[in-house]
């Protein structure tokens, strides 16, 4: 039984299927099917979803309005349920690329039906309403290289007739952030409600459980599931650690307690936990505007970040000035991290974030308000201020557009 060209064709169908079972993204699964006829016929055309929470009716309401800090009476609440919406971040590159080339695009897509996609803003939940005129309606993903980077989640409310309700009128259906977690066979969701309270739901349970973090009024900015426990930080910088089984919350020493930073986020990067605190210096901005004739050294954008790394053995945080080639992404619906070496096109040792004052006139495109904070230079700016890195979210490059049909002989 020596190696020969047809060797893998002698693999029985059930073994091929066993191999395909171990592919964890739909892209890999489709590429498996696209190899040859025996491989294609060894699996069904549908990629088995690894997420049992999709297409489930999730409980509503989260808790009584009073407990969620909403002043409207509970009788005002609409009737319906939540559904978990999943979107995927894809990193695209041309098929043939020189080692030095940094050509790439990071897009976020929601896939309501396999093959039918909706383009979303990369670092927020906004759907892009209008694609540019020359943007192709259909893309063939075999024409470029696609890598799944991660998933982001949201909770969408549907009334009893199945109609989605997105109105801001009903505060009880507005969710700031939701993360999915799994431990063995257990799956669940942890969310931060719009008014800042934490709630958890596990597959099989009928109701959400509000997390009691010991404070009178909680107003959490971010929550993350890290090494089997939840870490949550509120707008004042207070951190609590929540046990995944008992839901008991204990306070943890925080490096940003009492900071005047505006937004605090956790980012997991290569097994380590980071805390990113964003400072938007309104006062500095106003001062610079008013005294622009005498202020010499004005940073273009008075935004900066303080980054901390969690030292688990000591249960404390270290301020970091250098994160190597890592890139930390702070999005509304999820945070994540990539290596700029493995993913060319991103500037290493930087934080990518969104900021209202970066918003350009055309706000109906991915990355319309995205910016970069360079940890080394300690300066922040919109993407356009970083030549060579500004086109990572938009516009779609030439190699993405379909090739003209081959001439038939």
């Amino acid at each position, binding site marked *: *039984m*020596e*190696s*020969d*060209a*047809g*060797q*893998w*064709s002698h*693999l*029985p169908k059930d*073994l091929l299927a*066993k*191999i*395909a*079972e*171990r*592919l964890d*993204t739909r892209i*890999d699964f*489709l*590429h*498996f*099917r*696209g*190899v*040859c*006829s025996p*491989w*294609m016929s060894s699996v069904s*055309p549908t990629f088995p979803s690894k997420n049992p929470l999709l297409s489930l009716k999730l409980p509503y309401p989260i808790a009584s309005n009073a407990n969620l800090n909403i002043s409207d009476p509970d009788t005002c609440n609409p009737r319906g349920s939540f559904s978990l919406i999943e979107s995927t971040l894809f990193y695209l590159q041309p*098929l043939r690329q020189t080692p030095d080339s940094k050509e790439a695009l990071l897009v976020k*897509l929601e896939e*309501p039906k*396999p*093959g*039918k*996609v*909706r*383009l979303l803003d990369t670092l927020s939940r906004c759907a892009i309403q209008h*694609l540019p005129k020359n*943007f*192709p*309606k*259909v*893309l*063939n*993903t*075999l024409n470029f*290289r696609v*890598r799944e980077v991660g998933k982001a989640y949201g909770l969408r409310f549907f009334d009893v007739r199945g109609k989605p309700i997105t109105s801001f009128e009903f505060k009880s259906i507005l969710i700031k952030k939701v993360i999915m977690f799994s431990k063995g066979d257990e799956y669940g969701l942890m969310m931060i409600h719009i008014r800042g309270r934490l709630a958890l739901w596990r597959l099989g349970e009928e109701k959400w459980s509000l997390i009691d973090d010991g404070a009178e009024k909680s107003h959490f900015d971010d929550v993350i599931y890290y090494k089997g426990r939840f870490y949550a930080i509120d707008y004042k910088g207070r951190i609590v650690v929540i046990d995944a089984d008992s839901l008991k919350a204990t306070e943890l020493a925080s490096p940003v307690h009492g900071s005047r930073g505006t937004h605090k986020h956790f980012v997991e990067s290569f097994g380590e936990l980071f805390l990113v605190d964003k400072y938007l210096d309104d006062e500095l901005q106003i001062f610079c505007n008013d005294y622009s004739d005498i202020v010499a050294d004005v940073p273009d954008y008075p935004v900066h970040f303080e980054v901390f790394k969690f030292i688990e053995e000591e249960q404390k945080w270290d301020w970091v000035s250098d994160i190597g080639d890592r890139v930390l992404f702070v999005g509304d619906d999820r945070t994540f991290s990539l290596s700029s070496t493995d993913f060319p096109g991103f500037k290493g040792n930087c934080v990518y974030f969104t900021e209202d004052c970066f918003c350009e006139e055309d706000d109906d495109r991915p990355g319309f308000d995205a910016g970069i904070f360079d940890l080394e230079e300690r300066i922040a700016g919109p993407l356009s201020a970083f030549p060579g890195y500004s086109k990572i979210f938009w516009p779609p490059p030439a190699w993405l557009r379909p090739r003209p049909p081959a001439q038939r002989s």
Partner: protein
Amino acid sequence: MASSKTITLRSSDGEAFDLEEVVAVESQTIKHMIEDGCADNAIPLPNVTSKILAKVIEYCKKHVETPKAEEHAVNDELKAWDADFVKVDQATLFDLILAANYLGIMSLLDLTCQTVADMIKEMSGNEICEIHLLIKERSLEKICKIYNIKTKLTLQSSDGMFFYVDVAVAMESQTIKHMIEDRCADNAIPLPNVTSKILARVIEYCKKHVETPKAEEHAVNDELRAWDADFVKVDQATLFDLILAANYLEIKSLLDLTCQTVADMIRGKTPEEIRKTFLRKHDFTPEEEEEVRRENQWAFE
């Protein structure tokens, strides 16, 4: 002197047992301790629990009391008593073997090991599996050899080579386990689908997995995982043969490992690149090709 001295033995869990010296010296080990003058206080027996020590003392008492007569009747009565004595659960039986060995009570060692040898002849596949794991756990291979308790199996590869393997290791294969159950394992087990080269590797894998305790500690599991990762660093032909062998021999963990390895070789590649890696031909019918094109589309809303 008519009265015999009293010896006190202390079990591993701290219980004290008083017995006459004449009974205690059924144990060669205790006999030597008394001769060396170490028996003035209680003799500690850190390897023997009170439960087992009680049984051992019961055995020694009975054998001292019964006259070694020429008459068959008395001997038969003792033999019947012995047969009842060993009607205990497997774990207790093995603990008795270990105690008899440690205490140097030859007749008890004979009795218990012969009982195990007879048991194995009557056992089903699952039971044999448990027994062999117990034997391996308590390092009883030497004793088993003396008492002819078969602890090894012979496997024969497709190219005629013989492999002499511990039963506990061979039991990692469900296929072989069923053969033992069905009594097909008395001679060499032929494996016509597996070459000697592959069988050697499979045996190496099974050995490692049987020997490594499945601990909760991450350290041990991480080490095993690292060993597994190295194990599958082989050329494609060997990987392919390992998958087929793991499937034929029904070794789930090996099948999972090898399939995962192939999946890892597929991840992140385009279909064309996968074809190149696995030397597959693009052999789609026009309809299939259209299906591939369609399912790889993104249609924007």
